[in-house]
């Protein structure tokens, strides 16, 4: 299992490194969204709940861009058949794809978060960075798990890029809720507030539950 996941991950990263398809697009998209938010809201600096809202909505939409591409190479080039012919556990595909998505999101945030601090955020980004990173990790995990499941569901459909956002947005509402509530005090003017523990707990529980659901049903998406 571990060797399979490692092999799949190596394949994913090689593929992304050679084609440079998803990550640059997601980064560009998130920066463009900041610009749009700046003009849409007509503000130079944002703080508190608006800042947290802009950050999460941008990252969510950037993630959906990545979701659309997640299984495309498998679907178009016959990667699914190759994987199914190999005598390996099918859950490895779920784990590998979720880790891939998780790390893509982390890479995107390495650029998108400083850009957010530079372009829009009022208070300095450094004031609550460790707590914000914790929230980001939990959100990324949630998006990765739910997103892999949704992308797997949508890959066989004709209207793939339509189905993915329609399914992913309602399913990710609780994640967005938890993320927005936990990040709001971190981005306030005049020093960061305390991290609300109950929202962190909700995020973690949601991630865990969806990981279990995905583990239970993902096998059925792969048999042909």
């Amino acid at each position, binding site marked *: 299992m571990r060797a399979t996941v490692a092999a799949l991950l190596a394949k994913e990263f090689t593929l992304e490194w050679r084609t440079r398809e998803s990550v640059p697009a997601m980064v560009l998209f998130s920066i463009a969204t900041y610009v749009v938010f700046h003009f849409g809201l007509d503000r130079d600096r944002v703080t508190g709940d608006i800042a947290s809202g802009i950050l999460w909505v941008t990252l969510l939409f950037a993630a959906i861009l990545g979701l659309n591409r997640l299984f495309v190479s498998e679907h178009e080039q016959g990667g699914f058949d190759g994987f199914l012919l190999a005598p390996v556990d099918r859950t490895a595909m779920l784990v590998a794809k979720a880790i891939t998505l998780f790390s893509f999101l982390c890479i995107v945030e390495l650029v998108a978060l400083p850009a957010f601090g530079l372009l829009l955020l009022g208070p300095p980004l450094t004031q609550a960075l460790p707590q914000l990173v914790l929230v980001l990790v939990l959100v990324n995990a949630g998006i990765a798990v739910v997103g892999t499941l949704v992308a797997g569901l949508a890959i066989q459909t004709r209207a793939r890029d339509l189905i993915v956002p*329609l399914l992913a947005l309602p399913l990710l509402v609780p994640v967005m809720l938890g993320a927005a509530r936990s990040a709001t005090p971190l981005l306030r003017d005049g020093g960061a507030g305390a991290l609300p523990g*109950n929202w962190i707990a909700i995020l973690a529980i949601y991630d865990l539950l969806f990981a279990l659901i995905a583990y239970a049903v993902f096998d*059925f998406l792969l048999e042909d």
Partner: protein
Amino acid sequence: MLTGAFALVFFYAPDDADQGFIQKIFYIHVPMAIVALCGFMAGGVCAAMHLRTREAKWDMRSYVAIHISVILAVGVLVTGSIWARASWGHWWVWGEPMLVSFLIVFLLYATYWPLRFSIEDKEKQSRYASVFAIVAGTFVPLNFTAIRMAQQYVHPQTLATTTGGMPPKFALTFVVALTGMTLLFLTLCKYEMASKHATFRLRALRRRLEGDDDELMLGGRSAAPQL
């Protein structure tokens, strides 16, 4: 049964002290919401049975349960918003957890048909729809707990009041209305199943009558499961 419930609603149950006549919409709105949510979860359970047994009838049951529940959900949103207008003064209240989470659940289930329609292969279609139904079915209670924790309690906590503070006349009417709504749901499910069975049977017979080639002409576009 439902007629009886309505009779009780209008003639038996006394008007609510501070909400007056409009409170009577409660006897439609709440049972409808409860039945719709149970229907969604039943759809998930049937879908799990379908994945386990691979029998088309379970897929059909899941499809029908979700179908009727979505129709009820539209009713819930409409009556809920009428009630909100009457008792809180706005058509839509964002601070209100039940209404918001219901909208999210409704939006999620509205994707069920686009999903089914856009998968050509029948076997794959029912398998994917089942996976979706299971995921969405487990999402329903999760979503409700999450949203409920997010906001203050504006909504009347019906389930708490049935055991606690609801006067017997209200409680009786409510229980009758709930039973009536459940029976309505089951009857509608049964009718839809019967009509689907009849349609497929008719189609099969006609196909046999006219030779096998013109299936497409008779079929029309439908994403419903086929037996």
